[in-house]
């Protein structure tokens, strides 16, 4: 009997709260899909390093999943509280019929169990099937091929999902039992008649609070713009706090402010159901402003992760062709060479810099480069008696990568010098015509896009430099040739001088750039050269090794990690936020059925009533989104500014993608909520008439 009651209740609430169950299902589905990533490796043709990437990705996802499960847990508990509140009257009826609390608890627990069972089963089944499709995406992100289609099933992810969500539902059961034991019959039966006390009465207070919130937000934006997003200090924290306070105040006061504004225009206020809709909005926002603010911040996180997360990864992998013009770069510099046992030996003292000669050291160790390549060149880079960056760059275009601009910084950080012959060897490697300089001429090389215009202006103006007491005139165009491979940076400005200037100078860094002969297996060649580079018997100085292939794969790996994390976190936050909004509106609509029914009795047309409902639901969905969009515009702008040092982001494409995800997911939630509410407020007797 009781089980039958529970089953009936579940089916009934499923009908009313389809949105919630679908969200739950979707959450389970996402959880499984992302946790089953490592098992998809079976389908992919990927290299060792990519497998490692996948492994570390699933490691990170494991940690993120804890966070995600907390978010989903909150959603479940919150939604459940909503459902319980809605059912107070029903529980009251059980109690008046003399049903003991134990039995009521039993019914509730059974219901929770059934709901959990249903959503888990459906979500897991969907997840298992959808994760097959995800392999294709993974393959694409890794730029590899699907070897063959294998239906994969991740037992680990399966059990993990079961345990995580099982715990969630257990918590909900405990919450429900607690709320049943706290039930009082009198409260239950009069539950429907309690009016919500208006917390802000006076509209002018709302106006002041609203202005205050705008002030808070503006200050917050100003601070974060000024401070930058990656520098966590007091200003950053102040900006964050002001942002949160501003958001809360904004939603607390917004409805009152709107009401005040619209009220002052009687024509607008007394038009159709405007007055009704605004009052509806105003009456609920006082209790929901906290959740609406939280939703706004969740949406901000979603927009932020989706648009910048993907962009960051693109920036990292973009321009690899210019960042890595050679197959391999070995960079020798004075310092410690780490031996295989982990201890370090100092081999070359900084005074001995002249001894850094990679080619010679390789030869001495008997490593024959010609087995891999017949195109390589060594470049020596000098720092002695050079000009500071401040000679070319000003405060306005000072690259952040060199720290905050200051007079001292501008005059102390010095530009590197390269001899013309070394430079021309590289030009030859790249198949470009060699450069010719007069004996009193210099050239500027820069591969860092954002600075090229500044240098260009300087050389156009004929900025001269003086080295060793000799004045040099510039070549009137800025060169842009990478003289080393790098995974992290580019050349922010190097001077090329005629060889005659370098006679007795000591080099600071020596690069050996190398291109493999076609047909060489890059992976094995890389590994043998790399092991040489860390061998203190080969190089009596510190040497770092960068290979194009490894850099590519690493970049692709981090792109994959960033994309998946952004999608995972973004989607979970999005569905959680949208589901909370939808639930609030749905439960409110069932409360509002009476109000809308009255409007009909008063003779408001069906169309007008529906429009009022649409506006009401629309306001709830749109307002947190709008503020989140404004927040994220500022956020994205600061991230963009911070990343300018690394390269330009293609933010537009990602914003379009984020927007389309929003339109689809958020839009679907909105539509479902509107349609659900509409059917809830529809009073049957009115329709009986013309059937």
């Amino acid at each position, binding site marked *: 009997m009781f089980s039958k009651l529970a089953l009936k209740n579940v089916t009934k609430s499923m009908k009313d709260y389809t949105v919630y169950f679908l969200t739950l299902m979707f959450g389970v589905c996402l959880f499984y899909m992302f946790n089953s990533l490592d098992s998809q490796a079976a389908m992919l043709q990927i290299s060792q390093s990519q497998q490692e990437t996948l492994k570390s990705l699933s490691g990170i996802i494991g940690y993120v999943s804890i966070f995600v499960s907390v978010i989903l847990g909150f959603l479940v508990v919150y939604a459940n509280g909503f459902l319980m509140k809605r059912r107070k009257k029903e529980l009251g009826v059980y109690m008046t019929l003399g049903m003991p609390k134990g039995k009521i608890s039993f019914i509730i627990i059974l219901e929770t169990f059934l709901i959990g069972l249903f959503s888990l089963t459906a979500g897991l089944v969907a997840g298992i099937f959808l994760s097959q499709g995800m392999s294709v995406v993974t393959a694409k992100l890794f730029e590899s091929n699907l070897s063959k289609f294998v239906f994969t099933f991740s037992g680990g992810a399966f059990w993990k999902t079961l345990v995580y969500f099982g715990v969630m539902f257990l918590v909900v059961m405990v919450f429900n039992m607690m709320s049943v034991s706290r039930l009082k019959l009198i409260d239950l039966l009069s539950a429907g008649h309690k009016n919500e006390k208006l917390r802000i009465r006076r509209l002018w207070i709302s106006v002041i609070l609203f202005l205050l919130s705008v002030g808070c937000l503006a200050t917050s934006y100003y601070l974060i713009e000024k401070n930058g997003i990656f520098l966590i200090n007091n200003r950053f924290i102040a900006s964050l706090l002001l942002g949160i306070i501003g958001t809360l105040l904004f939603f607390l006061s917004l409805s009152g402010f709107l009401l005040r504004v619209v009220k002052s225009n009687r024509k607008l206020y*007394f038009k159709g159901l405007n007055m*009704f809709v605004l009052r509806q909005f105003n009456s609920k926002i006082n209790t929901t402003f906290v959740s609406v603010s939280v939703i706004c911040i969740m949406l901000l996180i979603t927009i932020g992760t989706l648009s910048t997360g993907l962009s960051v990864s693109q920036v990292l992998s973009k321009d690899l062709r210019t960042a890595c013009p050679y197959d391999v770069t070995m960079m020798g510099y004075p310092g410690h060479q780490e031996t295989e046992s982990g201890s370090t030996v100092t081999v070359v003292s900084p005074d001995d810099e002249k001894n850094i000669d990679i080619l010679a050291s390789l030869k001495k160790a008997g490593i024959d480069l010609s087995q891999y390549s017949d195109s390589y060149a060594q470049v020596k880079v000098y720092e002695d008696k050079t000009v500071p960056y401040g000679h070319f760059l000003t405060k306005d275009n000072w690259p952040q990568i060199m720290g905050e601009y200051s007079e001292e910084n501008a005059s102390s950080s010095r530009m590197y010098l390269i001899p013309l012959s070394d430079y021309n060897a590289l030009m030859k490697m790249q198949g470009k015509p060699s450069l010719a300089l007069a004996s009193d001429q210099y050239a500027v090389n820069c591969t860092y896009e954002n600075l090229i215009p500044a240098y260009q202006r300087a050389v156009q103006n004929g900025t001269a430099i003086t080295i060793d007491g000799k004045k040099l005139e510039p070549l009137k165009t800025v060169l842009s040739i990478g003289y080393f491979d790098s995974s992290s940076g580019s050349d922010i400005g190097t001077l090329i001088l005629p060889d005659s200037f370098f006679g007795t100078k000591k080099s600071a860094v020596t690069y050996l750039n190398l291109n493999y002969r076609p047909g060489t297996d890059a992976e094995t060649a890389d590994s043998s050269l790399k092991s040489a580079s860390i061998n203190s018997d080969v190089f009596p100085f510190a040497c770092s090794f960068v290979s194009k292939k490894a850099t590519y794969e690493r970049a692709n790996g981090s792109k994959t990690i960033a994309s998946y994390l952004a999608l995972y976190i973004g989607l979970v936050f999005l569905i959680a936020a949208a589901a909370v909004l939808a639930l609030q509106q749905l439960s409110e609509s069932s409360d509002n059925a009476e109000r809308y029914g009255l409007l009909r009795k008063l*003779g408001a*047309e*069906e169309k007008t009533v529906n429009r009022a409902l649409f506006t009401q639901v629309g306001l709830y969905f749109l307002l947190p989104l709008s503020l989140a969009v404004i927040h994220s515009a500022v956020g994205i702008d600061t991230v963009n500014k911070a990343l300018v040092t690394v390269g330009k982001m293609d933010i537009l494409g990602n914003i379009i993608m984020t927007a389309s995800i929003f339109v689809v997911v958020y839009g679907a939630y909105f539509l479902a909520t509107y349609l659900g509410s509409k059917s809830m407020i529809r009073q049957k*007797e009115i329709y009986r008439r013309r059937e």
Partner: protein
Amino acid sequence: MEQILKVEHLEKYYGTRGNVTKAVDDIGFEVQKGEFVGIMGASGSGKTTLLNCLSTIDAATAGHILLEGTDITRLKAKQLSKFRRTKLGFIFQDFNLLDTLTAYENIALALTITGTPASEIDPRVKHVAEELEIGDILAKYPYEISGGQKQRVACARAIVTKPALVLADEPTGALDSKSSRMLLESLETLNDDLQATILMVTHDAFTASYCRRILFLRDGMIFDEIVRGQDTRKQFFSRIIEVQTLMGGDNSNVL
């Protein structure tokens, strides 16, 4: 006198073939402009069904209802809402005020639904409020005022659109006797001063005694009709009790 409402052979059946309940069984009557008519009857006598048919909330099975010459049983769903908002005013037992709106806005709402120009709204609301002596509580929310005041706000809302007919469904049902008296006096004022035509459903003899004419329903049919004429309210009350005794009231089947 101008005829406002004419009900002809109205029937409303519930249930399916073989198991039919005749909630309203061949009822016919007329209401003139400016009348204050009461409909009395015990629970189950069909008075609420009759009111639902009149208010177009429910559809009649057979018969005609003519309001100012329009047969409302033949109106399409779209015309119905227009009919309701222009021709009818409602007063409900449980007030049915919107708790999110102030008293003023509750009254104004009826006007905004009919699309009254904003400039006309304020004077009309104020005028009706004056008439019903609720001018001083207009800025308050429903939960801040008493039941009697709420019902008078509801009256104001019903009357502010100047409807052809005001339908009141047990308006004193949720009020104490003092508030009831005040409300009924207000209705009388509306009836006298503003020439509002009121059709009130009640089962309470005291409430009904404020009407000018009373129709008694039993088992879906008109059992009796009495007119107050020159009687005082007290005399009229006694006559109502007499008819009720004759009808047997709620306990007729028990005795």
